[in-house]
């Protein structure tokens, strides 16, 4: 968040909507409720979609200026980033396949352990640079917290969330879409990580969740189209489409009703 989160924080916290404290409160409450509920229901929901959409919804309700051009760019990146992750994971898989074919199996196992650690680190870095920056961008740009305070607080709460509530989504992502071996797991995670990193550099708040799903699908499809479990995908796709509309509408209604 400190090294590369500024771009995303600026997009969400400054460029998208003219902020008011009420808008930030509504947006963060709606998005946190959506995420807790979705984790409970074992459906991965993008915090970016919930935050950005509820910010825009309550922004419309308050009649403040909303930059539609930026909003369209963000929506575009929501569509492009999982597709990018899909192809990147395939590319990573192919490269790795060739590389590992040249080493004995047990050495390959050791390399995969290091590579999984690397891809996990990229995803963790992205979580700070993009996820946290999206959630805390409005708070920082409204002057409630300094970037350093936000980063520190975000890191602690991120750990607590992962510790207490992530298990159910881990189960959905790790087993629900397609069976993942360590090799495919790395390709999927790294492909998603690269895609998010690219959009983070552009300052776009994209969802790691959907990039990971796109890349798992990519690796799954590479093996066989039949390996992907379509009921799960349908559920995930619906959540991807519905979340922004629901969050936008709720943001608008809450802002109208409460203030």
């Amino acid at each position: 968040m400190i090294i590369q989160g500024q771009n995303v924080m600026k997009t969400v916290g400054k460029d998208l909507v003219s902020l008011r404290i009420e808008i930030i409160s509504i947006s963060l409450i709606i998005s946190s409720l959506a995420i807790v509920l979705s984790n409970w229901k074992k459906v991965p929901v993008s915090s970016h979609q919930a935050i950005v959409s509820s910010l825009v919804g309550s922004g419309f309700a308050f009649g403040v200026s909303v930059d539609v051009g930026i909003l369209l760019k963000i929506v575009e990146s929501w569509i492009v980033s999982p597709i990018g992750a899909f192809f990147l994971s395939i590319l990573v898989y192919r490269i790795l396949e060739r590389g590992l074919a040249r080493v004995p199996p047990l050495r390959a196992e050791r390399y995969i352990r290091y590579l999984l650690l690397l891809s996990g680190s990229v995803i963790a870095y992205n979580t700070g640079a993009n996820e946290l920056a999206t959630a805390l961008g409005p708070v920082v740009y409204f002057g409630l917290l300094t970037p350093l305070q936000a980063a520190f607080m975000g890191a602690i709460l991120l750990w607590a969330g992962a510790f207490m509530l992530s298990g159910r989504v881990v189960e959905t992502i790790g087993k629900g879409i397609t069976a993942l071996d360590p090799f495919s797991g790395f390709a999927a995670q790294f492909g998603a990580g690269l895609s998010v990193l690219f959009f983070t550099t552009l300052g776009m708040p994209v969802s790691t969740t959907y990039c990971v799903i796109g890349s798992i699908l990519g690796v799954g499809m590479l093996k066989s189209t039949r390996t992907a479990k379509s009921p799960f995908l349908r559920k995930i796709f619906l959540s991807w489409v519905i979340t922004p509309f629901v969050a936008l509408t709720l943001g608008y209604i809450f802002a109208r009703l409460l203030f």
Partner: protein
Amino acid sequence: MFKGIRKILVGGEKEKEILDLIREHIEKLSEAAETLKIAIENNDPSLNYEICELERIGDVIRREIALRLYEGAFLPAVRAEFYRFSELVDESIDLIEDTSVYFSMMAGINPEIRDLCVRIAELNCKMVDYLYHAFDSLEKELDLTDKTIKLRAKEQEIDGLKREIHSKMVKIDIKSFWEGYILSNFLDNLVNISDKIEDAADVIQILNVSLR
């Protein structure tokens, strides 16, 4: 925490211990197969005691492997395969022990089938040898196919000998139910050892494929 970081950067200690244990396990299998071969060749049922002792050591090694794997060696996705492998090696030693027990209960092997039984025992020893090399290759070589093919060829040879034994067995004069029962079980166990060894080789191949 520092231990964890050290494990990540240097790593491989637990893995090395497990690989050494598995090698030791296969060596015990090899000793047991060799002892059974000598027992049949020399018609010496007293070697049964040695085989039982090897079986006991094999059990200890298998439990040790399970514990070390549980402590976190290797990626979780391949731990089950390593344990399955050690289980199959252990089951092979168990079968050798059973064969040896039945052998010790027999008053020698009928000359009609004796040479065939010795040949099967020899082939079992060869297969264990191939198994050891196939496992060793997981660390050193790119392609294990030739090793597992050799192993399968030996298993097919044993299947052929099994049919030959069965055709000769029906002509053997059996004096009591228990004599027939013991002979039948002895032969069944003797030929099943190779199946277990082949299954263990399949696990090596699965490990190989799953890490590609």
